[in-house]
């Protein structure tokens, strides 16, 4: 893996993998919904859409069509800590992708007009309707984040943002957002695949080299959480077919060496048919249709563990919640068995094997660790990190699931026709 910086601050990481003749190009910009100002929520994500609307040498909506026409695919995502743009293409086309990424970083505002802004604002509103408003239980994550982080904390509000804020967005607001955050010194560019590192390096110098750094890049907001999470509870009556329990707990941030143990704890509790929660709630007591508990890792303040279990028709909601909580407490008290640790590590080893064979996923993980931890090599060391996790560490990590630090959210059918 080569890790270098251009004079303008752009970090370039390259990794050669000749297994398949493809190249993955990935850019992480260190700007996410945590960086949004009050009254301007949803900007980071709206901006992600505008990045596909054309620049000086690429016309509106041509970006994706051009990538498709060379046999590639591309997308982008926005999350609390970042906005990432990624493409995977036949290896011979890698320079065209680099050129397109550089063109929109250098000249996006040339192509940006009111019509594009209005159009993509409508698209984003429909994204919110599709993904949240019109889906049963669709608002659960928004609620959980608002309960798990205090009002005013940068992680409190949802990445999709407030529709009122999006309506209020002016062209000038959007221009300011771009000029502030979209700069080579706020980006990590990762290229993985069947590439010649010198060719990639030359192309990056050629197209990104002339782009000016932003010397006034603002600091990210303070993510410190003053107090531990206090327990809270909420019930939402909505058009859902069955009651569903959602829970959330704070975990250490991504940089904390104990986070991998928490991930192993979640895997032992809820991953697959052999996991503790599945065995007890779905198989033995038959109070749940499904169970989950997943880690969402964040850069600062606290990461989150979010869990869910849908009540089986006719079963007791109290019993479901009690059993869910008891399994978490049991892991914190007794720790995992040796076999559970062995199974968890074997599965993680296979997942890592899959990741190393997937240039797109590997490039994204490298970019993420470079951006958030200044440690791109961690993507290749993950398997050792998980192998080193001990049963005692898993037990200790599970203490984060204590009921006094738990957010509990129930969805209940609103009593009208559930379908």
């Amino acid at each position: 893996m080569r890790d270098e910086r251009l004079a303008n601050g752009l970090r370039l990481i390259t990794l050669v993998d000749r297994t398949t003749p493809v190249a993955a190009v990935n850019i992480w910009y260190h700007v996410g919904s945590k960086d949004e100002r009050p009254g301007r929520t949803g900007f980071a994500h709206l901006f992600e859409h505008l990045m596909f609307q054309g620049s000086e040498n690429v016309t509106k909506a041509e970006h994706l069509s051009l990538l498709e026409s060379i046999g590639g695919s591309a997308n982008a995502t926005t999350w609390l800590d970042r906005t990432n743009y990624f493409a995977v293409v036949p290896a011979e086309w890698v320079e065209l992708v680099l050129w397109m990424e550089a063109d929109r970083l250098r000249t996006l505002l040339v192509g940006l007009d009111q019509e594009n802004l209005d159009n993509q604002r409508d698209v984003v509103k429909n994204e919110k309707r599709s993904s949240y408003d019109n889906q049963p239980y669709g608002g659960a994550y928004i609620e959980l984040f608002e309960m798990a982080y205090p009002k005013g904390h940068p992680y409190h509000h949802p990445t999709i943002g407030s529709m009122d804020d999006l309506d209020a967005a002016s062209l000038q607001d959007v221009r300011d957002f771009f000029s502030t955050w979209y700069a080579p010194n706020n980006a990590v560019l990762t290229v993985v695949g069947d590439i010649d590192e010198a060719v990639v390096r030359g192309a990056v110098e050629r197209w990104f080299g002339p782009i000016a750094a932003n010397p006034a890049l603002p600091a990210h907001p303070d993510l410190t959480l003053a107090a531990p999470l206090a327990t809270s509870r909420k019930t939402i009556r909505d058009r859902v077919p069955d009651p569903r329990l959602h829970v959330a707990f704070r975990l250490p941030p991504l940089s904390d060496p104990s986070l991998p143990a928490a991930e192993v704890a979640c895997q032992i509790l809820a991953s697959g048919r052999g996991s503790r929660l599945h065995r007890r709630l779905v198989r033995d007591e038959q109070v749940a249709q499904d169970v989950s508990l997943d880690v969402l890792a964040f850069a600062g303040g606290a990461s989150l563990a979010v869990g869910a279990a849908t009540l089986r028709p006719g079963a007791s909601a109290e019993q479901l919640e009690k059993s869910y909580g008891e399994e978490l407490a049991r892991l914190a008290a007794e720790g995992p068995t040796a076999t559970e640790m062995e199974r968890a590590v074997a599965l993680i080893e296979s997942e890592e094997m899959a990741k190393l064979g997937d240039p797109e996923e590997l490039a994204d993980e490298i970019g993420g660790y470079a951006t958030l931890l200044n440690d791109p090599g961690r993507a290749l060391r993950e398997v050792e990190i998980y192998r080193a996790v001990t049963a005692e560490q898993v037990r200790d990590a599970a203490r984060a699931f204590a009921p006094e630090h738990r957010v509990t959210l129930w969805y209940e059918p609103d009593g009208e026709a559930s379908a």
Partner: protein
Amino acid sequence: MSVQRPGPLTPRPYTFPRAYEHRTATGLRVIALPMPGRPLAAMQLLMRGGAATESATENGTAALLARLLTEGGPRHDAIRLVEAAELLGGTIGAEAGFEGVSVGSSLPVHRIAPMLDLIAEIAYEPSLPEREVDRLRALRLAQIEQAAASPRARANEAITAAIYDDAPYGRPIGGRRESVAAINRASLSARHAQLAKNPDPLFVIAGEFDPNEIFALIDASELARGVNGSGASTSPAAIPLTPDRPAAATTSDRPRVLLIDRPGSVQSELRIGRLGRSRLDAGFHAALVHSEIVGGLFGSRLNRVLREEKGYTYGAAAGFDFRRSRGPFLARTAVETSVTVPALVEARRQLSSPLSDAPSDEELDGARRYLIGTFPLRFGAAPPVAAAASGLTAIGLDLSELDRYRDAVAAVDRAAVVRVAEELEAESERIVVVGDAATVRAPLEAAGFAVEVQA
């Protein structure tokens, strides 16, 4: 353009993994596809006779049987099975499709020997415990209610039912309330017995290995012991999979809309479908190019207009679902309630646009290059390679299909694409809207649609 865009370097060669064949003494056909550099192997055993062979009253039996297989066999109950698989770093699962029931796994290639025995145990000798039959049937019924509450799932089920009436392709593979409620241990056991004796069971494996070593491992495993494959054929085509011809769409000349009422919906889920094509029909590659242009690519006619020009939706897509017999051609989108009618009108216009506005050179070139270029991207890992090989073999196609794919796509011309559009019978068109009937019914009728509302 003011700037010369960078062109390509010399393309590097790509070939689909070569397939090696073997037949065990007991009649199991084995296809192995070596993939150097891919230590995570994928495999699946396919027993013939899937949801396409089910009558309406049996609907969902194969799917529930698949779920029951992972409840274990004589040597491993469900918990011991999953623990054994996980200790190998592997997954083990079973799935029903129209063509058969498959048991599959993904795990590091150096540990596959014990997994072959686990697959054989649950595929050939499942315990089908009574208690788990009852539990999983109840869970499936709950899942059916969950799906009914999802506008997306509801629309998907309604459109295929509308196109196919009561033929197997018109039913959800997982079954409906009435048919699932009637499944019991005896019917599952009978279904399994039938699967086990159907001819031509198939085992496909992909990953980093020497195929001869893999064949030796399979010959020595339980997988090679439990098959006879000599039973009488229950032809997958015994039941017509599709209506002989499309039913008359309507008694009037107005296009008919099935409007499923979901009061208060902030979006309408739209589905427009027609009888599509069989994977075995000539012109498969032309149909792929047609689909990309009309509704596959981000820059397809449908998505370009509905999303990028009008802002009606987060996304719109259309394409063929290729099966042994004629699968559907479906368009899907979800649009803001207030634009339901203009979005539906515009979507229908774009779907049939190749008839009046033949694809441009740029569109043809873009779609062909997309299909050709993404082919290696799709097959970078072992699971999609094994799935593609199994899927083609299951419907009787030779794997040379995969080798000739890119040349065949490159040869598709404008006339072939227009022919695909012409062959999409207009009389087979069905339209489903899941949304707020109180708001959208009147505008739909005013726009000339014959609306049937379903609660």
